[in-house]
């Protein structure tokens, strides 16, 4: 049976990749008038990277294995 933690890993991996991608795009093309405060911290960039890495770890650790 596929572990619940693999589903968690997939969710964090995909969401992390999407958020990281959005962060990179915004860093390359910064908006003239940012809608959020503390835009200069690029939270979506580093938080997306954290989620991506945690998700990657879970996916590898709990990948289905043949016994």
């Amino acid at each position, binding site marked *: 049976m596929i572990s619940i933690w693999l589903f968690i890993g997939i*969710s964090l991996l995909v969401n992390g990749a999407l958020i990281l*991608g959005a962060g990179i795009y915004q860093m390359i093309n910064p908006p003239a008038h*940012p809608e959020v405060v503390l835009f200069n911290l690029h939270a979506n960039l580093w938080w997306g990277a954290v989620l991506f890495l945690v998700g990657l770890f879970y996916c590898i650790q709990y990948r289905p294995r043949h016994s």
Partner: protein
Amino acid sequence: MTSSMELLAVTSLVHLAPVDVAIIAFYFVLVLAIGWYLKGRAHTGEDFFMAGREMTAWVAGLSFLSANLGALELMGWAGSAYQYGILATHWYWIGAIPAMLFLALVMMPFYYISKTHSVPGYLKLRFGESSRILSAVCFAFMTVLMSGVNMFAMAKVMQIVLGWDLNFSIWISSLTVAVYVALGGLRSAIFNEVLQFFLIWAGALMIPVLGLYEAGGWEHLKVQITERFSAQYVHLWSGLGHFSTNPMGINWVGIVFGLGAVISMGYWTTDFLVVQRILAAKDLRSAEMAPIIGAGFKMLVPIIVILPGLLGLAVLPVHLTGEAQAAITGGHSYNDVLPLMLARYCGPGLLGLGVTALIAGFMSGMAGNVSAFTTVWTYDIYRPLINKRASDAHYVSMGRWTTVIGVLISVGTAYLVMQFASIMDYVQALFSFFIAPLFGTVILGMLWKRASGSGGFWGLLCGTASSIGMWTWVKLDPGALRYVALSADAKGLAQDMFQALWSFLVCVLVTVVVSMMTKPKPAAELNGLVYGMTEIPEVGEVAFYHKPLFWAGVVTAIFIMLNIIFW
């Protein structure tokens, strides 16, 4: 995708970018995929209703916590933190931690050893059929109604925050829940609740992190709140000496005895919605560890719920008000504080994850309601009253259909609330009538072998009736609150606390008196159900750090320290 969202949007607090919509859509795909994958593992009644009783302590514990961590809970308590300050944290600490530890160490052995399918099922074993039917009917009825009320409230939130159409929110979320719970049963609900737990933290954690950065740290935040509002907004206990010395209008008696000793005990130890997750644990040690793990994480939840509300007090340029005043002025209400903070700090991507966390919280709360309703209906109402001798496959089939029907009743309730808004207050009040007396009945049943079947039934009935009576009295004459809460300075929340306390005491008193006048249950029938008549299996020769008692001690020590730090 953007164009379809634009069609749905009217006016909203936040605007989603395509990446946000992709994150939300991915969540729906994933939960349906989980349900589809697990449908092949829900053949028997034990599979469908009890998740095969094979959940680890971590999965059961996180699911136990998540079933309560709904979107309305997040937004409502963030709003309460803005309105009442750090006092709202009591609902996460003294209003949860002692009860969770009590469930783990004292009550769980009896629930688990008796192999009951539900809390009403335990009442059947301990007190007889009448108590079971009374609690099962009340629970089933309340659960679907509450689910509908929450569904409407969540759709309303989505309308305000995202500008989504009410019908769209109601149907898309309810059909998704119906599909994945009907396919995979409790296991599917539990898997999705654990997923939701991670999504909520991933989606909400950026608010306190960035908020504290903007405010200049916790000490600066306290100074700003004190200057803008009052020092009592940042103290947990020091203002609770009297009803008039804190923003909540309550005193320490109401918090300690009403909330800590009765309401939270009733909710966390007898509400089948949360207890069902623990009953799915694979063994007794896991069942005892699960609420302790839940308690450990529960202590952290104020970081993503209370702290955003407190940060709102300090950094938001606008002043939030109550719902009624906000409707008149066109401003924002307390309950908008979390979406406002989300919009303040979270750009594309993070915003989508935050909104997904809210949607996931709502759907998993609904799945919890529906799966608990399905089990109680099938095992505690349908089987004993309508069809006693059907096959296991028949009951599983009944469970699947009940899931769909339960969701449809919830949808119907949501539309009813849409037409008659006052119903919402009544349904929310109805749920609170039952919890405190039920705790009295269950705890006496577990700890007092002399409690008789008649005592249990009449105690539960009279306790519930007294709660309804007090609520009606205050509804008809608001001045009566001074008698219920024992102070002319008492406010609304104090009523809930004292109403629960009195109804619990009425339940206990009636149960004791009637039990002393009636014949007790034979000792041989109390094995596995009552303290002193049950041999509790030892955890065995395991290292101290594998024992539930050790971790309960760790959680208790942290709990005490936190209360002293934020005194």
